């Protein structure tokens, strides 16, 4: 296998607060290969967005990367000087944020914002950059781009603005796009369009995508692999059809059980009892143990490490003594 575009190893992110240091990310590892879409799913506060921000180097004080390493196509990027990291942002890693309504500067024409970004990263003339901007707008599906390029953000609808944001994220042909809940703020009908747009762009350009969302439907539709995060750790990671059909981790099972199905009889949706612990009160051992129906003594004492099970990898003591073959 060739070298992954993004490789995160044992990442730790901490936030200094008045009540001591909070560990938002606690030993997260994953890879994303060229052209692959990795879905990252979990409850609010599980550390999905922070992981994305850590990769692109936008963790602001009081937060900091406390350990581990992040490699972009082999190059270590978590400890680069700010100026070099800035050159990578937008050029090699593009990012799409949740709310397209507030992601664009309201005082500048969308074209000016695209041209500015292109010219920051690529050595192009004003007119060449403008031509490229029009092409990009056309590529993300904005009608009459040569006219719309001179519009202001408030003249675009939410879905159209998210398309502009995507155009901005891909304008320098990045190898990796981090999409942080790109569809949460949009109408359901627009969501599908944006998802298929991101999917198509990833395929056409061979771009790797890290898709952060709490919508399992979006993940199932888009991703090649999926990572389930819980309380700052990866509970389970694996090919999307395996994780959706045969989730291993009790938390992942709970998540899949909470997806409503069209064929669904009148069964009530399964709920996971309780809620995710606050960062200041993570229980010892497995952080999921207070909510887990299968928890036993070891779960309360010892933290489970990720272990491979077929194509999946799961961090759960339930699989400690079972030989890998019979697990799935």
């Amino acid at each position, binding site marked *: 296998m060739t070298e992954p575009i993004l490789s995160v190893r044992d990442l730790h992110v901490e936030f200094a607060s008045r009540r001591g240091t909070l560990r938002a990310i606690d030993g997260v590892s994953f890879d994303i290969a060229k052209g692959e879409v990795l879905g990252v799913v979990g409850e609010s506060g599980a550390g999905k967005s922070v992981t994305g921000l850590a990769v692109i180097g*936008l963790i602001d004080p009081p937060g900091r990367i406390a350990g581990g390493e992040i490699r972009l196509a082999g190059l270590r990027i978590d400890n680069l000087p700010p100026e070099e990291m*800035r050159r*990578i*942002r937008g050029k090699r890693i593009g990012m799409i*944020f949740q709310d397209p309504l507030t992601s664009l*500067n309201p*005082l*500048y024409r969308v074209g000016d914002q695209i041209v500015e970004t292109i010219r920051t990263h690529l050595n192009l003339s004003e007119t060449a950059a403008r031509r490229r901007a029009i092409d990009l707008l056309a590529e993300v599906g904005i009608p009459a781009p040569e006219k719309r390029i001179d519009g*202001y953000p408030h003249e675009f609808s939410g879905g159209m603005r998210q398309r502009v944001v995507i155009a901005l994220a891909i304008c320098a042909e990045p190898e990796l796009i981090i999409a942080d809940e790109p569809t949460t703020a949009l109408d359901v009908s627009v969501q599908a369009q944006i998802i298929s747009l991101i999917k198509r762009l990833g395929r056409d350009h061979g771009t790797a995508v890290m898709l952060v969302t709490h919508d399992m439907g979006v993940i199932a539709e888009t991703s090649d692999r999926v990572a389930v995060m819980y309380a700052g750790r990866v509970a389970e990671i694996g090919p999307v059809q395996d994780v959706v059909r045969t989730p291993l981790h009790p938390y992942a099972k709970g998540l899949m059980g909470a997806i409503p199905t069209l064929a669904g009889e009148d069964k009530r949706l399964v709920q996971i009892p309780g809620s995710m612990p606050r960062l200041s009160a993570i229980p010892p051992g497995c952080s999921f143990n207070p909510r887990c129906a299968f928890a036993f003594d070891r779960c309360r004492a010892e933290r489970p490490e990720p272990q491979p099970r077929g194509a999946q990898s799961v961090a759960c003591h339930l699989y400690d003594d079972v030989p890998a073959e019979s697990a799935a």
Partner: protein
Amino acid sequence: MLAFTLRRAVQAIGVMFAVGIIAFSMFRFAGDPVNQIVSIDTSAAERLADDRALGLDDPVPVQFMRYFADAAQFKFGVSYQFRQPVSTLLSERMPATLELAICATVFAMVFGILMGVYSALKRDTVLAKLFQAVSLIGISLPTFLIGILLIYLFAVTLGWLPSFGRGEVVKLGWWTTGLLTVSGLKALIMPSITLGLFQMTLIMRLVRAEMLEVLRTDYIRFARARGLTTRAIHFGHALKNTLIPVITVAGLQFGSVIAFSIITETVFQWPGMGLLFVQAVQNVDIPIMAAYLLMVSLIFVTINLVVDILYTVVDPRLRSTVGRAA
């Protein structure tokens, strides 16, 4: 856009009309103007002739319309004290006041924005904290005290700058300027600082607060995620978004700078309209006072109009709503 401007202009004329009524009624409340003109031994017949010559025997509304029509052509009558047309007196004094006001405003804007941006971006540095402390002084000390302190330090103790007057001035047509001579420029420094200090601290605090607010917004985070340079983010994206409130305050303050330059002009014996006004008050020179009132309100109304139009230049969102409303 044109309809919007016209509507605002009509409103402005309404305001001016109301101020005109107040200015006009000053003449009536301050006693019979003929008393100010005639001497003690003038006969009743002569007084009546004066009354008629000045139009004071006409009904009040007629007198008011005449006053307002004259004022619209910048004819404000004759000063009791100087025996010269008020318009001549004002136009002689206006360049001094305007030059001072503009210098003070430029000083306030330039330093206010620079210090505001700096103290927002480098919040925890010693210099930023010093700026905050200085701004507290600037906001709380009264103007005349700052003027006197500056005179004491730079004119009396160090002897670097003149303590009063405008220095040498050059005549350019009807305009006189102190900007072209060394002594004129030197004379301008202290009054400008005195007059502009309050505005500067106001703008600085405003820019700092707005800047901190804007730097937290999503579009700044997205701009960083696009890898734009820090310079482009701070000065292109963030600063422009702080300008709306700054324009409002600076614009309205420009009006107060002109109107309340009275104190600074008195402290520095600056030969401007403010000083003229103070002398007029002392001598109950009603035509000058009324004309000054009209002038100041005209300036305020004009500035408000300009500020409204400037908003739409900075913020495209207002352009379309204004267009739709019109």
